[in-house]
């Protein structure tokens, strides 16, 4: 009888172990499908659900928060998806949070991602409709890739042609196989370097000159920088202008004078006319001048006589003595 009791204990232990493992695994399986614990429902509407079915996971910023409860067709362009969300998430999910669809891994199941909107909208209540964001579907990606592939094909064809042309070009190959070319190039580059160094020196010189100019050194500098010179120049120019004006007047007056003279000479008025035009006057003048010549000769003789006169001889002797 005692042995039978021990056997029963063993049996009970065996069965309980089985039951415990079963309950544990049922709980573990059920935990993710939100069968236990309280939930609330959020809704979202898509144009295309890309194979999303009930039981697919819902994630909030990458954390598993619930599952898809039902996918319902509202109209030909609208599909409503109900999500069962853990009640603990009620304090995090806001009304303006964005729901997008993506794939778990590269080939995995469809999942819904809730992304926080971060705009301070009120918390989502049971049955609220969240906003969706259109996700990039594989088809669209493939379409774009197709275009890219075509472009790459065109480009590679062009590249092939270019390479063929390069390969067929004898001039280029000659250039590439030319052995003196590197030496020449090196010499050229050396010259260029020297020229550049010279240019650099020149530029530096110019730089110093410009600096000097700026500092007002040298005549050019003073011209450019001294304001007094500019004033003086201005004055000088003004004076020159005035002189010019005066010259104008003078010329006008001279003009008038010559005109008067001309008319006087021509009309026979005044002494000029008499001098220039009267021939009898010339004869008279001639006579007068010869008379004066005779008179002066006589006067010279008189003066010589006077020198030798006793009365005046003493004076002249004193003059000669002073000269010596």
């Amino acid at each position, binding site marked *: 009888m005692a042995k039978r009791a021990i056997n029963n204990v063993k049996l009970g232990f065996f069965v309980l172990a089985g039951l415990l493992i079963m309950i544990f695994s*049922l709980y*573990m*399986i059920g935990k993710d499908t939100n069968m236990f614990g309280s939930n609330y429902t959020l809704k979202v509407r898509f144009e295309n659900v890309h194979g999303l079915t009930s039981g697919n996971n819902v994630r909030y910023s990458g954390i598993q928060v619930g599952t898809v409860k039902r996918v319902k067709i509202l109209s030909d362009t609208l599909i409503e998806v109900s999500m069962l969300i853990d009640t603990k998430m009620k304090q995090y999910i806001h009304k303006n949070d964005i729901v997008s669809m993506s794939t778990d891994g590269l080939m995995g199941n469809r999942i819904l991602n809730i992304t926080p909107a971060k705009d301070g909208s009120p918390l989502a209540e049971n049955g609220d409709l969240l906003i969706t964001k259109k996700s990039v579907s594989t088809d669209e990606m493939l379409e774009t890739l197709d275009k890219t592939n075509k472009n790459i094909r065109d480009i590679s064809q062009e590249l092939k042609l270019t390479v063929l042309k390069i390969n067929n070009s004898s001039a280029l190959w000659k250039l590439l196989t030319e052995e003196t070319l590197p030496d020449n190039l090196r010499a050229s580059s050396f010259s260029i370097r020297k020229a550049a160094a010279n240019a650099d020196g020149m530029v530096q010189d110019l730089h110093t000159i410009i600096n000097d100019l700026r500092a007002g050194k040298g005549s050019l500098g003073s011209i450019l920088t001294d304001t007094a010179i500019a004033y003086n120049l201005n004055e000088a120019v003004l004076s020159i202008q005035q002189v010019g004006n005066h010259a104008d007047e003078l010329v006008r007056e001279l003009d008038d004078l010559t005109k008067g003279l001309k008319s006087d000479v021509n009309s026979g008025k005044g002494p000029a006319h008499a001098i220039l035009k009267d021939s009898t006057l010339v004869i008279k003048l001639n006579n007068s001048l010869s008379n004066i010549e005779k008179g002066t000769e006589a006067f010279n003789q008189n003066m010589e006589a006077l020198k030798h006169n006793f009365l005046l001889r003493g004076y002249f002797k004193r003059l000669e003595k002073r000269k010596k």
Partner: protein
Amino acid sequence: MPLPPTWQQFLDEAGGLSRFTGRFFSQGFKPRYEITELLRQCYIIGYKSLPLVGLTGFIMGLVLTMQLRPSLISYGAESQLPAMVGIAVVREIGPVITALIFAGKIGSSIGAELGSMKVTEQIDAMEVSGTNPFKYLVVTRVMAATLMLPVLVILSDAISLYGSYLGINIKGVISMDLYFKQVFDALSFDDFVPAFIKTYFFGFAVGMVGCFKGFNSSKGTEGVGRSANSAVVVSSVLIFILDLLAVQITDILGLN
């Protein structure tokens, strides 16, 4: 039109088994119940089978993991190993392998035990002494087999998954937490519940066939060996047929 003798024999067997099953249902649920004998049979059939079942389960999990690993690596899906092994073990490998081992051990022992009792006319003596031999021998054994196989399968699943965890850690590294998290993430009730329900049928089939073969054994001691042998063969075939039915039914119910 006379049927070929093999056909006739087969139909005779099928009819006999059906009648025997009907007798189990008609008598099994009426008082008085042989509770003590049922517990004793449960201990023998369930508890005593655990080491064998546990060993095979452990080896199956380990081997399955190591066999799956190279092909999963070639797909670059090595991280899916726990999920794959978990689903394979819980859905199919665990129930079927355990049931087959169970049939080998329990089916043969029931067949041999009842067969030798029949041949030595102990059953007839029991009837004379006023005890219902069908209730005392058949119902308790079938009930025990039906109730114990699911428990064995669950324990075997757990041991298999542990073996698979060790199998992954032979070549790679995975923590116990992550391993079981991945296994249970991959599993759903659709995987677990149908597999669990079908184990009741497996256990029932093994117990029923073993008892039928033993109860109807004849031709002396030679018949005892034959009934033990045919009990194992028929119950193993029945397990596969039931498995086929189960997968069809779960498919129709949309649980696959």
